[in-house]
């Protein structure tokens, strides 16, 4: 033994070091705890060498093991008749009829995007696309949920600019349309921005590919880009809290190469047309380590790889570096034996590396050779099965304080408030952002960015004589203010808003992917936010029969002890049978606006936790607006019925900023006017009256505004079904929003403010 090691040292000094026994200090340095280190030694019956330790530390990281959240993720509803594949694979899969399936997932790239906004967000998009096409699906749409710090924070504009360029840089180049998403600003994200990217793909139902390895002796194939020293230990880094000094310890940043990503996409899909791929897994976080371990573990098998055969970009890479590299645009596959040559031709055609690096074994062990020596030999089970699962203490804090409208003594008019609303980058048009995304490539985009509450992309090739075809609707939503004040209601609300958005675009909600972004789970109230929102999400998702089929968890979003607002982002997918029946938000002239879900005698709106409150007191407080899941479900079903009867011209849900803000947004495109039908009790108020303000800006839930030119039929249908409704008025061409004699708002003026807020904020910042 001694002699062989000496020989290895002669071959490669660094590789020799990687083969040496590790110790507790090194384990701590890699983010493992003392208990975890001891567990590892016990389970593998030896002290791991440094490569082995690196592999354990990656697999035990929060990012790969979900050690803080696993217990609770298991409680999510994940089943329904239309679910083909729930959580546990690279992406979730649902049945959308016609033997087709939608494949989708959301994933965070928060920490990398803070360090290097362009590359961090670009590789986030690349990563989520690989998760989707690994399953055999052609990606057809991208969305993103972004959270930045206060717009006045010195880093914010730099981060916005870089992240938006990075998302566009990858998505535009690879040629998948970016059709939706959300962007919000809050000071809690000053040091921890959130970049969550969602991808949706389309596959044949009977041609889904999975990651479980099969068949001892089958070849293990590496394809894609070469391995470099990119982002080594990214998985552990993204699970650690930021401190001042972490900017010093920066690992090499991963650089996205969307061009190679495009080649990999085409090559993989081309190979998948044949029947030689037995299993396939992308190399995401923790690269070759997590892909090989997960494939082997899911198949209950082992893997024997020769790392000398891995295509590398830099000289002298050690086994440790090869296993932990997070170089982008790579995949691992198990092929039918004998098919290697034919498969290789496809990858060569696309100028990609193709290497047979080992084989599947039935030993249940991960064995790695390097320079003719064994660099790693460990059982696979403990890497996955024995990864710690914590039952962390938690306390769900629910703010029950009711804020009454007369708590606000504002001396501002409705017009003043509306101007402030649309000067807030949280409400203002995000056109500056989405114009930088190619939203129409692939030629199937029907509704996107800003035109509707959810994006709609046609399913290619489903045209019939009668219809332009079926479509997939998608959206991402979360209102962190609500989650902070009451995690359970906040979790529910995110699902409700998503479902409402899908329905308001004319589609039927089907299933969910979610991205749980939180602070440090070792803090009892942060853990409470996690548990609470999972409870809320579960209740709402069960009510709508929209199970969770995939997702991602991002914890430790804290800087110097300051956590982000809890942000469980819901990505929802729905289906529309005939895309021509889709609904945008813009009302036409002479349309009647009717609020579904608003009682006739409704006069006091819910201002607790509202954007109105944030604008007046620059903070938020009190209980969030309550949610009634049954009502929500009814409203969603009602709008679907109304639309099936072809009674609607548009729809828009009431959310951030309340009724008046939503109304303005419906009037903008055609610069229309409206005489608002105010409840009698408010007729005698004045434009600064707090009760009137609460009616206009309250964020009471379960409401959608519809526009129609068949108001009588709509009303009779609503009455028949006992749905609360309130007629807001009929649009006209005056461009004025009149609230009786109380106030007149110029839609043109608000429209211009809405349009110019973000460009003018970003214009003062260049590059």
């Amino acid at each position: 033994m001694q002699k062989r090691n000496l020989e290895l040292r002669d071959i490669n000094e660094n590789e020799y070091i990687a083969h040496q026994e590790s110790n507790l200090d090194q384990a701590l340095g890699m983010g493992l705890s003392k208990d975890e280190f001891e567990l590892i030694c016990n389970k593998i019956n030896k002290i791991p060498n440094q490569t082995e330790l690196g592999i354990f530390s990656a697999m035990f990281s929060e990012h790969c093991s979900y050690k803080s959240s696993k217990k609770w993720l298991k409680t999510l509803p994940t089943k329904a008749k239309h679910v083909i594949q729930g959580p546990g694979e690279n992406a979730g899969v649902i049945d959308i009829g016609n033997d087709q399936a939608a494949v989708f997932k959301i994933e965070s790239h928060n920490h990398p995007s803070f360090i290097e906004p362009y590359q961090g967000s670009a590789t986030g998009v690349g990563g989520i696309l690989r998760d989707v096409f690994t399953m055999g699906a052609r990606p057809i749409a991208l969305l993103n949920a972004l959270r930045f710090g206060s717009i006045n924070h010195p880093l914010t504009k730099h981060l916005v600019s870089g992240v938006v360029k990075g998302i566009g840089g990858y998505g535009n180049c690879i040629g998948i349309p970016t059709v939706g998403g959300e962007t919000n600003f809050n000071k809690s994200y000053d040091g921890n921005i959130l970049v969550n990217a969602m991808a949706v793909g389309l596959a044949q139902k009977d041609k889904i590919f999975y990651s479980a390895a099969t068949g001892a002796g089958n070849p293990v194939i590496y394809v894609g880009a070469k391995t470099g020293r990119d982002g080594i230990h990214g998985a552990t880094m993204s699970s650690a809290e930021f401190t001042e000094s972490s900017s010093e310890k920066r690992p090499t940043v991963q650089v996205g190469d969307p061009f190679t990503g495009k080649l990999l996409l085409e090559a993989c899909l081309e190979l998948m047309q044949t029947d030689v791929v037995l299993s396939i897994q992308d190399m995401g976080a923790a690269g070759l380590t997590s892909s090989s371990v997960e494939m082997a573990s899911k198949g209950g098998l082992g893997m024997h790889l020769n790392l000398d055969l891995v295509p590398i970009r830099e000289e002298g890479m050690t086994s440790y570096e090869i296993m932990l590299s997070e170089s982008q645009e790579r995949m691992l596959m198990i092929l039918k034996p004998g098919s290697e040559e034919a498969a290789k031709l496809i990858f060569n055609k696309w100028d990609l590396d193709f290497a047979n690096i080992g084989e599947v074994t039935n030993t249940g062990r991960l064995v790695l050779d390097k320079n003719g020596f064994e660099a790693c030999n460990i059982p696979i089970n403990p890497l996955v099965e024995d990864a710690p699962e914590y039952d962390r203490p938690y306390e769900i804090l629910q703010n029950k304080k009711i804020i009454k409208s007369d708590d606000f003594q504002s001396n501002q008019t409705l017009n003043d408030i509306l101007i402030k609303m649309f000067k807030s980058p949280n409400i203002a048009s995000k056109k500056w952002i989405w114009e930088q995304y190619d939203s129409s490539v692939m030629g199937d985009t029907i509704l996107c960015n800003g035109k509707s509450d959810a994006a709609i992309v046609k399913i290619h090739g489903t045209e019939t004589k009668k219809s332009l075809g079926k479509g997939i609707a998608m959206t991402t939503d979360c209102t962190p203010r609500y989650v902070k004040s009451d995690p359970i209601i906040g979790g529910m609300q995110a699902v409700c808003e998503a479902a409402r958005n899908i329905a308001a675009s004319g589609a039927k909600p089907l299933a969910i992917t979610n991205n749980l972004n939180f602070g440090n789970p070792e803090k009892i109230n942060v853990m409470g936010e996690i548990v609470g929102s999972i409870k809320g999400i579960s209740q709402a998702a069960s009510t709508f029969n929209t199970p969770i089929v995939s997702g991602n968890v991002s914890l430790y979003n804290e800087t110097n002890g300051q956590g982000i607002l809890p942000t469980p982002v819901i990505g929802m997918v729905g289906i529309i049978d005939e895309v021509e029946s889709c609904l945008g938000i813009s009302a036409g002239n002479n349309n009647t606006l009717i609020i579904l879900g608003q009682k006739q005698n409704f006069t006091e709106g819910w201002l607790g936790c509202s954007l109105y409150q944030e604008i007046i007191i620059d903070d938020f407080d009190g209980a969030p607006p309550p949610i009634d899941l049954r009502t929500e479900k009814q409203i969603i079903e009602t709008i679907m019925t109304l639309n099936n009867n072809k009674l609607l011209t548009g729809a828009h849900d009431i959310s951030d900023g309340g009724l008046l803000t939503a109304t303005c947004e419906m009037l903008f495109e055609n610069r229309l006017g409206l005489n608002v039908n105010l409840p009698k009790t408010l007729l005698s108020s004045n434009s600064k009256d707090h009760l009137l303000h609460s009616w206009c800006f309250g964020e009471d839930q379960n409401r959608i505004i519809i526009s129609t030119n068949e108001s009588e039929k709509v009303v009779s249908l609503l009455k028949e079904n006992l749905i609360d409704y309130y007629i807001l008025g009929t649009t006209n061409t005056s461009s004025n929003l009149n609230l009786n004699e109380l106030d007149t708002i110029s839609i043109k003026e608000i429209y211009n403010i809405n349009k110019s807020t973000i460009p003018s904020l970003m214009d003062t910042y260049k590059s």
Partner: protein
Amino acid sequence: MKVEVNISLKEGVLDPEGQAIDNTLRNLGYNNFDNIRTGKQIILNIDETDENEVLKQADKMCQELLVNIVIENYQINIIKDK
């Protein structure tokens, strides 16, 4: 004084552009070359006469804007008029 800032990717950082150029050159029949790396160059005049002062200012500009110090290295040269 005329100053030239040469900006290159740090060693080990992927240079997809360099790779693509490498491929095309090979397709065009070149093959006795290797190690292509791409970089940027920014040339400007700084209105100072003291070399040290010029270097100091250029360095500040690099740190503050011109260079992405997470993934890039840079080098500042004073260009002497010929």
